[in-house]
């Protein structure tokens, strides 16, 4: 918002000058490129005003630049000012035609309000979207994944618990990184039914980077990266906070969430934050029947303290997320006959008995996720900033199946993953190569230790893992052009303890050579070590304001996950027998993407195309015997198709983009599209769970403010999801569901009560109560998606420093 205002004012000033000056005068074609930088850090000084004598010319842009054009030959003094800096000036001599440039160093003022704004991170070379403000508020009370589901290129992989995980450009789970407060979320992300254990209320801003972001974030960021930024800490004495109340019609539930931040007057360097949320809902209802047992109970709590000394900063935070999620009683994955009978029936077996009550019975999931983050950062004037983060994450997941003796049986699948990470990043100060070019960059080291404990029905083994990584990334920044190069190396070492019976099963199935894990197989200790390399290059060219084009080329290697190596048992989600491949090698992605952007004042648009060729893509698919027939295992629960993980050559490509336009002040029009295609290059067959084409359009009307209401709006949204084209009957079991159209709407406003901002909104989804199934929802095999749904949200924002 502020950036747009700055750009706008710069544009206006520039327009005014070219109109008032006499451009025809050949004597007055001189120009001066002013570059304002911080004297100690050499970071650009953004939004500083530039003037010559008393004539105000404009403000510097996000790179600290401002161009003064149409100058007549003379010697003049250029003055640059910003509240928190001492004014600085430079004497420039303008010649008739040549363009000169001047770098003006600015020093922080003596007794000023401390402004902690660092230069923003340079824009990623991939296409990216930020979800914050109103867009994020719209998703309050829904799942974390719903918060980013409206971003181009993002779709939801919904599970039978009603929660979902994000899919970006056809990749999810293992190939998609989620970073919360800069720390990678470590959980059982491999499971299709395992939604991210993140409370969406934590986020003040969510950034979605589409495309490989492996160098900075970890080599397995093949599909993209989701960065969850918690609320910015308060820096001035006083307190502020917010409280949200949300009620939902379908599920007859609601959420309460709140956050309080405070800085004591006696200790102005100490910033504290407390936050928490609680959500309870009954089972959801599809148009014709209840989705029995999909009730949910979730809560989360967190505390953060931060001590900020000007040249260093120390932060400690703890968060817990806990949830009990009922799995739809309509799920039938215990045998292929039951599964297919249900999938083909149209209406779930026993739907007459289904009820939308609050009780959460078996089958259900219980999850707990704890995160502790300790972070210190130190600024050295002449060098840059060093940041070190230690993070501990504890992820506990218990899954309860329908069993005999349920009161005493406990959970059938118990996963506990403890992750310890330590990383250090050094961001050097911008290095000025010339007046027009400077270099920004960072070097980082990271270490990871993980221990996974497992108890329950045979599925995945316990393991311990150690990893280390090193990376460097540099960006050459010019006025209109930015170039980036990065490289990363990771070493992963892992030892899994496989029970004798599981080991023998892998050997008998041909997935593992006998003796591959030594002579002692009680249990077999299978070790693997991977060296993976990632490199990327990117370029950004603002070829004609407000147009820009970005491109990147990358090669990334991802080490296989433990489940891909050692999965061994009946998968809880699908009626298949799953077998991992312990000796899998890393998969290698060669990716490229091109993004065209337009950032005008009335129209903003971005369109992006991508191609990812993945060699040795680790794919979970039906096992085929020597004669080309699917392998069926006969067990005491009937016949099961055997699925194995194995490397295949794959190709993903597609396009996504969005446009928002304001033809008149009160009206916003938006449109988005997401297209992904994926092929097995060996067979030219389709891959499973690659989203169907998504199209979305919205119209928002913002009436003029009328006291006491402000920022009122009405939005109507339409989403069309096409039928997925192409499917593999052996791997997908039933054909993709028909396409569907979902209608949504929202009305909201803002007011002030006792000096506190209050926001109220009513939102509706699937307003036509359409019966539909979604290709990337696991529910599609069992039941329809939920019917119409209303959310009523009320939020109060308070601050000890009342707005004037």
């Amino acid at each position: 918002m502020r950036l747009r205002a700055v750009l706008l004012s710069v544009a206006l000033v520039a327009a005014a000058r070219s109109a008032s000056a006499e451009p025809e005068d050949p004597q007055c074609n001189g120009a001066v490129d002013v570059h304002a930088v911080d004297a100690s850090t050499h970071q650009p000084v953004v939004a500083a005003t530039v003037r010559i004598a008393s004539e105000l010319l404009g403000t510097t842009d996000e790179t600290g630049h401002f161009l003064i054009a149409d100058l007549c030959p003379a010697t003049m003094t250029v003055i640059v000012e910003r509240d928190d800096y001492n004014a600085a000036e430079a004497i420039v001599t303008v010649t008739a035609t040549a363009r000169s440039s001047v770098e003006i160093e600015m020093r922080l003022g003596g007794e000023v309000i401390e402004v902690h704004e660092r230069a923003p991170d340079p824009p990623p070379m991939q296409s990216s979207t930020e979800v914050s403000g109103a867009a994020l508020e719209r998703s309050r009370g829904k799942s974390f994944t719903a918060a980013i589901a409206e971003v181009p290129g993002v779709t939801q992989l919904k599970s039978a618990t009603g929660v979902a995980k994000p899919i970006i450009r056809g990749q999810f789970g293992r190939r998609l990184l989620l970073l919360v407060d800069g720390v990678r979320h470590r959980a059982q992300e491999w499971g299709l039914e395992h939604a991210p254990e993140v409370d969406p209320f934590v986020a003040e801003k969510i950034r979605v980077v589409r495309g490989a972001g492996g160098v900075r974030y970890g080599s397995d960021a093949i599909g993209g990266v989701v960065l969850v930024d918690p609320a910015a800490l308060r820096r001035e004495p006083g307190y502020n906070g917010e409280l949200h109340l949300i009620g939902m019609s379908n599920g007859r539930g609601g959420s309460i969430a709140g956050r309080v931040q405070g800085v004591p007057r006696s200790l102005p360097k100490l910033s504290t934050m407390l936050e928490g949320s609680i959500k309870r809902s009954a089972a959801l209802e599809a148009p014709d029947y209840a989705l029995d047992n999909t009730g949910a109970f979730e809560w989360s709590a967190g505390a953060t303290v931060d001590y900020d000394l000007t040249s260093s900063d120390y932060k400690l935070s703890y968060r817990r997320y806990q949830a009990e999620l009922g799995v739809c009683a309509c799920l039938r994955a215990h045998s292929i006959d039951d599964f297919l009978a249900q999938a083909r029936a149209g209406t779930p077996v026993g739907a007459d008995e289904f009820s939308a009550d609050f009780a959460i019975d078996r089958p259900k999931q219980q999850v707990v996720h704890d995160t502790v983050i300790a972070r210190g950062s130190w600024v050295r004037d002449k060098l840059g900033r060093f940041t070190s983060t230690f993070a501990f994450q504890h992820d506990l997941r218990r899954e309860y199946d329908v069993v005999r003796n349920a009161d005493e049986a406990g959970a059938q699948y118990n996963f506990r993953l403890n992750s310890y990470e330590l990383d250090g990043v050094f961001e050097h100060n911008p290095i000025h190569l010339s007046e027009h070019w400077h270099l920004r960059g960072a070097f980082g080291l990271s270490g990871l230790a993980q221990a996974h404990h497992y108890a329950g029905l045979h599925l995945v083994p316990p393991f311990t893992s150690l990893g280390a990584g090193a990376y460097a990334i540099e960006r050459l920044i010019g006025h209109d052009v930015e170039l980036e190069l990065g490289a990363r190396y990771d070493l992963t070492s892992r030892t899994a303890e496989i029970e004798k019976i599981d080991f023998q099963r892998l050997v008998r199935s041909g997935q593992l050579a006998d003796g591959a894990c030594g002579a002692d197989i009680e249990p077999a200790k299978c070790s693997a070590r991977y060296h993976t390399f990632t490199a990327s290059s990117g370029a950004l060219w603002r070829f004609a304001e407000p147009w820009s084009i970005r491109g990147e080329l990358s090669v990334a290697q991802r080490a296989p996950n433990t489940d891909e190596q050692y999965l061994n048992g009946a998968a809880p989600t699908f009626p298949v027998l799953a077998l991992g491949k312990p000796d899998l090698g890393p998969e290698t992605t060669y990716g490229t993407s091109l993004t065209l952007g337009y950032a005008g004042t009335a129209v903003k648009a971005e369109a992006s195309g991508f191609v990812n060729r993945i060699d040795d893509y680790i794919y979970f698919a039906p096992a085929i015997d020597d004669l080309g027939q699917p392998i069926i295992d006969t067990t005491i629960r009937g016949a099961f198709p055997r699925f194995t993980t194995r490397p295949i050559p794959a190709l993903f490509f597609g396009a996504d983009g969005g446009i928002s336009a304001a033809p008149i002040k009160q009206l916003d029009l938006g449109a988005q599209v997401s297209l992904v295609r994926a092929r097995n290059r060996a067979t030219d067959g389709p891959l499973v769970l690659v989203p169907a084409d998504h199209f979305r359009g919205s119209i928002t009307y913002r009436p003029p403010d009328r006291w006491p209401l402000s920022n009122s709006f009405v939005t109507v949204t339409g989403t069309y999801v096409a039928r997925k084209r192409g499917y593999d009957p052996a791997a997908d079991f039933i054909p993709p569901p028909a396409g569907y159209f979902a209608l949504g709407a929202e009305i909201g406003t803002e007011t002030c009560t006792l000096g506190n901002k209050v926001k109220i909104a009513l939102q509706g989804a699937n307003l036509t109560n359409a019966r539909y199934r979604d290709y990337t929802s696991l529910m599609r095999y069992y039941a329809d998606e939920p019917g119409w749904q209303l959310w009523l949200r009320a939020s109060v924002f308070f601050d000890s420093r009342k707005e004037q």
Partner: protein
Amino acid sequence: MTLSKTSMLATLMLAACGSPGGGASNDEEVITTLVLSFAPTGGGVSITAEFDDPDGEGGQAGTAQPINLAAGSYTLTVGFQNRLEAPPEEITDEVRDEQEFHLVLFTGTAVAAAGPLTHSYGDQDANGLPVGLTSSVMARAGTGQLTVTLRHMPPEEPPVKAADTVMLAKQNGIETLGGSTDATATFLVTVP
């Protein structure tokens, strides 16, 4: 230095972690073996046939022994075991404890109209509905396939099992019932 400190720290912490609980192996739901025992009503030696999957699901497929009966009437008892445990765990008792939620179904050509076996349930749960752990069987000359299925009915209260459940399963297929299959095996029946 940092690195060695880190690895030391990591080692300490890893060592401190516990198991996620929920029982050491939690195999109470696993069934490896289904045992049919035909006791002649007039007395004599019982004839047994097993379906046994010694390594559980996956790997080696289970095998079913043939059923060879002399013509006559028998009391058939069905048993379920988990032989991955030592000594083998008797699952039949658990089924009997929750008989309102379990149903053993007998299908296949062996119990069809022209088949060699005539089957009738010999036990009832608390609601007066068949369970199938004990049955009466009449054998006459012929051959056919007998599929024995242990169905775990949905955990709804009141129980979903009804008077017509067996009939519906035979008519429309077991997969059209609610709940899930805990064990199923097909045997070849020969009555000379």
